[in-house]
């Protein structure tokens, strides 16, 4: 067998020679390599390339790649599965109360409301100093404003207006997910606000309202960070 023919078959010879070459070809090539140092050299170098290719070092992407990936996929995790960012154990109590309220029929609603109010009062007693309870019956229907609440609301309204202005260009699925999450926060906020207005001294509800503002802020942060 000539050098040209041998060299053209060297990859088959090195890889699965039983698969790609006949026994006589393998014999001829082996014989030739035993006599031809040039071809033997080529065979050795191709073999080293083959072996080295399996041992190439791994490269590492920049850390920014993971940041981008996590930003994208975290938004796609359904909110029911998403761990809460803010410690809000009272949110669970609120969710329990809300879900059970809706199961009551009309005649039972007053009783359920009384139970809910009793639980809230109990929570207030457990969490606050009785001396600080300054429930003012005359002010029961006046909206109670938390410290800095006006600035918080103004900031969130401004940011939400900017997002709403460009929302029509979003992917419909993303828009729906954003609106669903926003509605959940705003419904909870509205309800907590009603409870807080009826008892401004309720520190549990004060914390609840502030937590929900923070939740809303986190949602808007996520959208702005992704530059939607």
């Amino acid at each position, binding site marked *: 067998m000539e050098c040209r023919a041998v060299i053209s078959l060297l990859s088959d010879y090195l890889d699965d020679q039983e698969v790609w070459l006949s026994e006589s070809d393998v014999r001829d090539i082996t014989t030739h390599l035993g006599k031809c*140092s040039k071809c033997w*050299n080529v065979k*050795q170098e191709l073999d080293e*390339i083959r072996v080295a290719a399996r041992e*190439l070092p*791994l490269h590492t992407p920049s850390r920014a790649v993971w940041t981008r990936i996590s930003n994208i996929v975290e938004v796609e995790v359904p909110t029911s599965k*998403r761990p809460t960012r803010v410690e809000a154990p009272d949110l669970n109590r609120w969710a329990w109360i809300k879900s059970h309220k809706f199961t009551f029929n009309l005649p039972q609603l007053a009783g359920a409301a009384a139970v809910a109010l009793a639980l809230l009062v109990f929570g207030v007693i457990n969490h606050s100093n009785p001396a600080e309870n300054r429930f003012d019956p005359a002010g029961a229907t006046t909206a109670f404003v938390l410290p800095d609440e006006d600035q918080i609301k103004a900031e969130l309204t401004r940011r939400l207006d900017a997002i709403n202005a460009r929302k029509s260009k979003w992917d419909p699925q993303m828009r729906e997910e954003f609106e669903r999450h926003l509605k959940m926060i705003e419904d909870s906020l509205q309800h907590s606000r009603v409870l807080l207005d009826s008892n401004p001294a309720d520190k549990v509800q004060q914390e609840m309202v502030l937590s929900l503002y923070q939740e809303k802020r986190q949602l808007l942060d996520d959208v702005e960070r992704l530059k939607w």
Partner: protein
Amino acid sequence: MSANVTNNTVTDFDLAQASARGDMAAFEMLYDRHNRRVYSLCLRMVSNVTEAEDLTQEVFVQLFRKISSFRGESAFTTWLHRLTVNLVLMHFRKRGVRLERTTEEGEIGDIQDNFRSAGERPRFVDRIALDKAISELPPGYRTVFVLHDVEGFEHAEVADLLGISVGTSKSQLHKARLRLRELLNKKYD
């Protein structure tokens, strides 16, 4: 899941299942385990850091979206490997990268000129030089070489992935190796 996870004790399958349930810590652990292999494959196929990082990002985002469909019938690494290759090849198609089509014979070139006597020959392949030489291959040769020699796909698999015949895959691999040999020999000239 998160509370029980330590890096060495939990399987890829368990992490995949946890990720499918929205456990981001589990997904990050999957990323930590496999990102280098994915990135290295992308980088060697496209020879461009920015493109390789973008492709790596796309692989893991797609992985997250499809992870609930991973049933564990194959090894997770095999599944991820195929996903990566498919995305890179799709990227080539979108960019209009033409992979070389050659006959099964092809040309061998003047091999004899690159002779160094066996007795004088130092270790021929420096891995860093090989990595660089791979990046200098034409896209078609590079793709076949990376898939077969670096990533370990069989010719039948390479042919299936690229839509070519087994004979063409073998021919392109041989030419890629010869070309790499030339490039590496120039380094020593």
